């Protein structure tokens, strides 16, 4: 019996005008946008490749270690654009995509910079495929749903069907299954086209994990679609009039898709300004550099064999002037200290100072590295409290609408969410550790090349290569699990509600 019902509903739906329009519009929008977004991705990839090349070249031009490995220096690593960002751009085009690696500080998201083209162009917000689905799928689902029950009430056909020995649950299930099957057609066809376009693009190579991620996106899309279809069904069952149902459905759609995601953040009370937290953390960091670090360094300079506490030991030679610089930014809790020396030659009478200088810079390098590590211990939780925590509160508010849940879930799958972007900075921190280990191994801190290139330039090939791999699909799944779970729960709850209303209603 159920199959008969489903077949009837399916035929009813497939033959309609709205179905044809739905398929057409979806295809048109998704294919057109995929082409545009793919072009955009290719351009970003090109910029990334250029930037990587340029940074490597600039590093090779530095003749001493201390001139290359600094806060403002040339050992820069770049975040490659995420190929799945065409599904959901998320943070991929927003958060800084290059960061400098140095022993003098621990890199984080707040120290990142940007390589890219005309910054004015940020004005033009581009679209991704999930956004299209967000708007269109929800609209289509409601358009398909508003008259399913109300229409039958009005026409009186429901009474006819119920004269047969069919349970009301079966009728409901048949309507749900058939409409979902219909709605899946435009979704799957358009996604198929997207995947075809993706795989035929030479600059993108998708692996098994990527296909699993796309599968995750499809699953989340289906759950999202189903939530809106059930909402339409609920309205249809509750109002029993097609005209009212349609009007109400449109307003619900407008509210959930257009109004709520944009208004809610303006309405909720703004989280307390974490300025006190920032100030206390920064004063702690400042104390560490100006207190302990300064003391130890002065102690070394006072007790070494050379008189005076001059930080460059009074070294004189040709080449660019040595300089020491303090980087500080109370807003992002940045504090670091660097000494840059790039001598090209010395007088003979300076030669006796060289072993002392080597000793001194070995000591200083280690001291700066240690202090930078300790700074990070304070800085990390503080940044978490100041920036990440308030943003997460906002994110939770957004998730009260299925649109927010869907967006978050797909971002988690594509890896363009905050976690995904922060993975890059985790990798940057690991890379910094590798660089420091390599510097220790090769005795770079205590070498003559640290401050002078007169006896051979710094050898940058001792440093390891940086490479960034996106997390595996299991991690993506874990990050998406909660949001997809809530979406599924919504489905179940609304279905039960409809069932209750429908079973109790008079025909």
């Amino acid at each position: 019996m159920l199959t008969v019902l489903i077949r009837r509903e399916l035929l009813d739906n497939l033959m309609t005008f709205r179905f044809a329009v739905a398929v057409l519009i979806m295809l048109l929008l998704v294919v057109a946008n995929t082409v545009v977004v793919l072009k955009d991705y290719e351009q970003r990839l090109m910029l990334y490749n250029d930037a990587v090349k340029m940074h490597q070249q600039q590093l090779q031009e530095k003749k001493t270690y201390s001139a290359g490995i600094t806060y403002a220096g040339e050992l820069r690593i770049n975040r490659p654009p995420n190929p799945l960002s065409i599904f959901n751009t998320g943070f991929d085009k927003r958060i800084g995509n290059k960061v400098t690696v140095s022993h003098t500080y621990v890199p984080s998201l707040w120290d990142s910079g940007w390589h890219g083209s005309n910054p004015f162009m940020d004005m033009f917000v581009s679209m991704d495929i999930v956004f299209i689905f967000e708007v269109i799928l929800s609209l289509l689902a409601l358009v398909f749903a508003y008259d399913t029950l109300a229409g039958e009430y009005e026409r009186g056909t429901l009474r006819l069907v119920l004269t047969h020995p069919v349970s009301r649950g079966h009728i409901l299930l048949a309507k749900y299954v058939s409409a979902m099957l219909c709605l899946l057609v435009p979704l799957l066809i358009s996604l198929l086209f997207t995947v075809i376009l993706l795989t035929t693009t030479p600059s993108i190579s998708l692996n098994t994990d990527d296909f699993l991620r796309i599968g995750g996106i499809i699953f989340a899309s289906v759950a999202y679609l189903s939530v809106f279809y059930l909402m339409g069904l609920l309205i249809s069952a509750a109002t029993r009039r097609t005209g009212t149902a349609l009007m109400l459905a449109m307003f619900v759609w407008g509210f959930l898709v257009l109004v709520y995601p944009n208004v809610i953040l303006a309405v909720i009370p703004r989280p307390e300004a974490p300025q006190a937290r920032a100030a206390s953390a920064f004063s702690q960091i400042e104390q560490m550099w100006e207190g302990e670090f300064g003391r130890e360094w002065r102690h070394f300079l006072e007790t070494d064999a050379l008189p005076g506490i001059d930080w460059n030991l009074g070294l004189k030679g040709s080449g660019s002037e040595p300089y020491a610089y303090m980087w500080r930014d109370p807003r992002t809790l940045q504090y670091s200290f660097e000494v840059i020396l790039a001598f090209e030659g010395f007088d003979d009478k300076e030669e006796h100072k060289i072993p002392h200088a080597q000793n001194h810079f070995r000591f200083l390098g280690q001291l700066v590295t240690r202090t930078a590590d300790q700074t990070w211990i304070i800085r990390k939780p503080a940044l978490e409290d100041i920036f990440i925590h308030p943003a997460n509160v906002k994110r939770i508010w957004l998730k009260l609408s299925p649109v927010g849940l869907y967006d978050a879930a797909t971002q988690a799958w594509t890896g363009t969410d905050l976690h995904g972007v922060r993975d890059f900075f985790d990798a940057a921190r690991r890379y910094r550790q590798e660089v420091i280990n390599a510097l220790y191994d090769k005795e770079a801190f205590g070498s003559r090349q640290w401050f002078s290139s007169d006896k051979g330039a710094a050898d940058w090939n001792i440093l390891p290569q940086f490479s960034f791999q996106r997390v595996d699909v299991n991690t993506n799944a874990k990050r998406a699990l909660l949001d997809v779970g809530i979406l599924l729960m919504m489905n179940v709850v609304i279905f039960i509600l409809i069932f209750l209303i429908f079973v109790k209603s008079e025909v």
Partner: protein
Amino acid sequence: MWHIAKRELYDNLNSLRFALATFLLLGLMLTNAVVHLREHPERVQMYSEKVAAHQNRLKSHANASFYELAQKGPGTLHKKPSALHFCTGRGAAFLSVHVSSIQSWSWDERGLEGLWSLWYPSATPNRNNVDPDVTKVDWGFIIGYVLSLLALLFTFDSISSEREHGTLRLMLANAIPRHTVLIGKFLGALISISIPFTLAVLVNLLVIATSSDVYLGADAWGRLGIIYFIALLYTCLFLALGLLVSARVQRSAVSLVILLLVWVTLVVFMPGTLASIAGRSLPLKWERGSQRFFERRAEFDARWHEAHGDRRKQLQLSGEYVTKDAEQREHAHEAHLKRRISQVKRARAITRFSPVTIMEHLLESFAGTGFERHLQFLENVQSYARQFREFIVDTDSADPESLHIFGIREGVSQKSVNPEAVPRFEDTLNFRRDFNAAAVDLLLLTLFFVGFFSGAYLAFVRVEI
């Protein structure tokens, strides 16, 4: 005609959609006002603090010496925040709020100091912003998205449902010409949607105007009037579209489905897709020009050595070098800025195919927050820079003891400058210019409306009842 309009109006006033529309618009406009009152005082305060700091800096330079003032330049010039930021503020985040004068270098081995030149920083608001990305609820959003959707919801059934009920045949039997019916229906829908919208706008302005933190001048009210008119014109466009589809289609449900899909394409996707196409610009190469700067430096060094012994000649050479260097740096920055701007202009021209974007551009022009406003600010800055340079030359030529060699300490007047005499930067908005910039958009929007409305007329005249 008025009869039909009145009947339409009464029909609408009692409907569910009228209540929902009023509720929605009021809620959105109130949110907008509250957010504006929360954010705007901060913006204004920040601006006045920065302007005060800038004035102090100028004064201290003027007091120190003429050379200090001439060499360091006017400092950072700030863009005045618009009082109508609540109308549309989306694009403003991506436009920098200041232009700085920077010295190309601070000190070299001959004791020469770099001369100031203008430098245009870019705004990158999102580089370390981890907050979720949302659209601002400004008038641009409320009018562009919500009001247009409401306009369609008010008109989708105005003809098709009458046909369904058979009342249309009845009405036309009374020897009323068809265009009268159409115009009557159009006016009725327009009035019934203007009521909640006007109400919401008034509440919004009431909240903003009664607050002591925000001051709206006569100019601002005039601009608001124009913005209100633009909003109505934009609504008319969608009403005409609704009538067009409603006249062509037999059933109201089908009419709504078509309208919704058209709306989604026109309002949600077209701006985005066009922007994606337009925003995908080729990267501009920033010519560092360091090679040229080095060459110039080498040439200067050579000539300086040639002039060995002739102090006066050396001074002249140094002054020339410093001035020339700053000039060329400024040219490089300006050329780069121009390339960027022309790229944006091209992109904006592409996005004009969508009525929402046109409306947003119009709002930006009149609210003084968008790209056109930024261009005006840049122009103001450049004309101020010229004024400042003229002031420097005039002050120097007024001093008979000066050697009139700019760019070096010994070459210019040794007196200090009266701080009051230094020209002040004023960031003004020119209404006429705004109007000129907006004229094309205004015409385009009217054209869209005329097109849709005549389409509706043709459709209604030819249709069978």
